[in-house]
């Protein structure tokens, strides 16, 4: 037996030991530094081990611990897929711990964060390593509970308590769906080891049910519309570095669960399974980014944007399923690689942006963009790295977001080769939705950066802001560097992903490092290629030249004068362009169906002195269509059933008796 898995299992054990230590010592002054230092080291070791496995490609390794279910034990396994997600989890864990070294010092109640943070990391690592349904679900629930505790860290805030409650309800719902899915996969024999599930192929009906249940279970954790309602509440409620972990990493662990079951355990997919996943992905992407655009709370905006990226990844996974079902392994490998690449990229830039939001929060105490502004003068380094994050997430070259989204679109362009007409029509439509969401994402992050960092300060807190500590800045700088590196050297990442794609879709993308000039070529050079390095060099040179010419020939011609105030002599900062006004045109276009928004203008009577008022009314449609009827029905049912609590003893006996009789009758009449 290979010793990699036991070594990797020492990681979660060390995390748990750290958690216990943190619970004991969390009120010490040095506890913050100790805990984050320990998690930093453990994550780094795990990262190195997993990356070594992914790069060295020594096949798979497994281990069984004598815990858990009898006859099954606690099984753990490391293959390409888990190694890749271990890299994502522990890269995030390492950098978040680095950030936490600085950010954690501002925490008002460290004893509510420190014990749960290592436990959360341990849970995520165990989910990725688990090789039987019991260990998987146990680790999954452990991860959910640890993150719930972190969401509730500042539980005195009413909004956080509500977020925690909704998160808990949704997490239990998701786990129930997963439980049922694994029950179906285990079949009548009840084989809960993944190895046994892999060989037992369920019938078409059971496979369809498993797919739907996985979409519900993993989708509710990842934030698929309409199961996303908890995500924009819970992710921002946690401390910022935990928000980064939840948004950047935990949603990826949910994706891992989906990929593990649907691509690995379920066997050969049906073509329509791709349709379902594609459509849900497309809708999620568009609705997620539309919500993000309407948001003025910086962290909630980022959480909604996570939903959009999850949508993109799911759409790409749906494509991979469709290609795989139709026996087009090279196209499936392309779509699958694109999805995994985007997983990695999103974990980079979403963590970076949440760190930036955390830095802004530390410096100003504000999350509301309408009270920020002009921070580029106060936090120059933070605003620079935040800008890199914004550019990456907007999918602009030469950064990483472009590379992965470009691969997604390359996969969409192969859809005419699909045989089913449904897919032929559907894939370009979803492609259109993804393109729309990419454009809207760019608008959204222009808004996020512009309103927060540019313009003039909208509050006193902003004017007194100072740059944050070095640990935080270092963490953000590292992530910004990763965004750039993955953008200009995507071939390296794509080649390392071949270990993952080969066993799951049966093919890999062409070897990219063999291409001249570090280009990436999704299918063949005759069709399309992209060279991030070349774009980067071109942009750098042309921008430097432009700057040089402007300074050389135009700067001395500059004449400074008083700005014309359009007739208003003292322009207050509140009169600047706001986040809401930026989003207004888009709200007018999409608001009607996405938010059922209505604008009413109340003009004062001629001669009256009160101001005119513009009132915007917006609805969360998913909440009203899906959640309110359910909560209403539950409330109605419990109201009715409540009477059962006040029956007489004889009536209770009678009820039990009648129920017994009915059961016996059913048994007697059963054919």
């Amino acid at each position, binding site marked *: 037996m290979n010793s990699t898995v036991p070594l990797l299992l020492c990681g979660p054990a060390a995390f748990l030991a750290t958690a216990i230590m943190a619970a004991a010592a969390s009120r010490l002054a040095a506890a913050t530094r100790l805990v984050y230092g320990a998690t930093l080291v453990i994550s780094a070791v795990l990262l190195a081990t997993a990356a070594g496995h992914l790069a060295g490609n020594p096949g798979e390794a497994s281990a069984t611990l004598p815990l858990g279910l009898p006859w099954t034990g606690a099984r753990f396994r490391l293959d390409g897929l888990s190694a890749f997600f271990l890299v994502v989890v522990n890269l995030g864990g390492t950098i978040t711990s680095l950030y936490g070294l600085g950010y954690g010092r501002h925490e008002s109640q460290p004893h509510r964060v420190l014990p749960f943070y290592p436990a959360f990391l341990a849970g995520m690592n165990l989910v990725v390593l688990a090789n039987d349904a019991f260990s998987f679900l146990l680790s999954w629930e452990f991860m959910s509970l640890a993150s719930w505790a972190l969401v509730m860290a500042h539980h005195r805030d009413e909004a956080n308590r509500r977020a925690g409650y909704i998160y808990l309800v949704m997490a239990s719902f998701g786990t129930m769906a997963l439980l049922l899915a694994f029950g179906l996969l285990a079949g009548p024999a009840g084989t809960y080891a993944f190895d046994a599930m892999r060989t037992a192929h369920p019938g078409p009906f059971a496979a369809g049910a498993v797919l739907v249940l996985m979409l519900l279970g993993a989708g509710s954790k990842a934030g698929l519309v309409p199961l996303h309602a908890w995500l924009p509440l819970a992710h921002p409620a946690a401390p910022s570095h935990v928000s980064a972990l939840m948004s950047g990493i935990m949603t990826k662990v949910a994706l891992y669960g989906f990929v593990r079951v649907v691509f690995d355990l379920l066997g050969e997919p049906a073509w329509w399974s791709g349709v379902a996943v594609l459509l849900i992905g497309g809708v999620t992407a568009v609705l997620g980014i539309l919500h993000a655009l309407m948001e003025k709370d910086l962290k909630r905006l980022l959480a909604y944007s996570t939903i959009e990226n999850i949508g993109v990844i799911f759409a790409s996974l749906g494509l991979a399923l469709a290609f795989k079902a139709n026996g087009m392994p090279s196209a499936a490998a392309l779509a699958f690689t694109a999805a995994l690449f985007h997983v990695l990229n999103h974990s980079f830039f979403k963590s970076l942006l949440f760190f930036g939001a955390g830095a802004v929060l530390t410096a100003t105490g504000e999350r509301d963009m309408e009270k920020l502004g002009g921070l580029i003068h106060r936090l120059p380094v933070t605003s620079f790295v935040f800008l890199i994050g914004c550019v990456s997430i907007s999918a602009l070259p030469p950064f990483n977001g472009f590379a992965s989204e470009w691969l997604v679109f390359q996969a969409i362009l192969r859809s005419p080769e699909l045989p089913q007409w449904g897919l032929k029509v559907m894939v370009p439509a979803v492609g259109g939705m993804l393109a729309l969401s990419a454009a809207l994402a760019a608008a959204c992050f222009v808004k996020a950066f512009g309103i927060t960092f540019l313009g003039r300060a909208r509050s006193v807190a902003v004017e007194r802001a100072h740059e944050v500590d070095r640990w935080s800045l270092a963490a953000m700088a590292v992530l910004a560097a990763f965004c750039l590196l993955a953008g200009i050297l995507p071939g390296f990442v794509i080649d390392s992903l071949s270990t993952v794609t080969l066993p799951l879709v049966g093919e890999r993308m062409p070897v990219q490092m063999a291409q001249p000039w570090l280009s990436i070529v999704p299918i063949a050079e005759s069709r399309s290629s992209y060279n991030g390095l070349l774009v980067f060099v071109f942009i750098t040179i042309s921008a430097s030249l432009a700057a040089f010419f402007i300074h050389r020939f135009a700067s001395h011609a500059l004449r400074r004068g008083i700005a014309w105030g359009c007739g208003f002599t003292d322009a207050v900062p509140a009169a600047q362009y706001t986040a809401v006004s930026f989003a207004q045109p888009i709200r007018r276009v999409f608001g009607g169906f996405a938010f059922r928004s209505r604008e009413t203008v109340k003009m004062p009577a001629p001669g009256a002195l009160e101001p005119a008022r513009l009132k915007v009314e917006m609805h969360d449609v998913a909440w009203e269509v899906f959640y309110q009827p359910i909560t209403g029905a539950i409330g109605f049912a419990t109201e009715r059933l409540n009477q059962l609590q006040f029956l*007489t*003893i004889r009536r209770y*006996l009678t009820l039990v008796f009648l129920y*017994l009789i009915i059961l016996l*009758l059913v048994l*007697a009449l059963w054919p």
Partner: protein
Amino acid sequence: MNGLTFDIAHLLAGSLVLISFMMLYQDRLFALINVFALHAVVLALSVAWQAYIQDAHHLYITAAIALVFKAIVIPVGLHRIIQRLGIHRDIETAVGIGLTMLAGIGLVTLSMVLMLRVTPEADPLAREDLAFALSIILLGLLVMVTRRNAVSQVVGFMSLENGLVLAATGAKGMPLVVEISVAFSILIAFIVIGVFLFRIRERFDSVDIGALDDYRGERR
């Protein structure tokens, strides 16, 4: 299987069902307890017969327990409770006797149909025993449901347990430990219920469980 042994076992189990029916229409408490004692005696006989034909000597102990506790100790205890509570003149307003009997017949039919259908390959004696035992259990439940007096509910519960013992002895190989522990748990239940009866009585001046409901402020 010898025809006579089967017939005797059948007769004893059938008489248990018959005595359960007798319990259904007793509207005086003393009479009910006497019928219950008779029930326990017949049960003891039936178990002893099973012990004889199965050649399982531990079943004699079960029979002895049934005879001593259920036919003597518990009825005598219940008699005393009733006398101390002064309710021996109470007439129970049971649900109409005709209706109860009809329901009882329906229950016996149900258990016969069900048991004979689901155990086609079992030994015929065990089949009959199981069918009768299920009838006795259901009739015991019916007694509990149709009575309002706490004492008669206790009696219903005990007769239900008799059905369980009959089922257990009919099936071969039930360990003695299980039977003894069931018997003792019944005894303990009897003690606990007895204590409760007095507590209820102290509190509400009645053992009509309707008083409990009135106390909780509920309508019936």
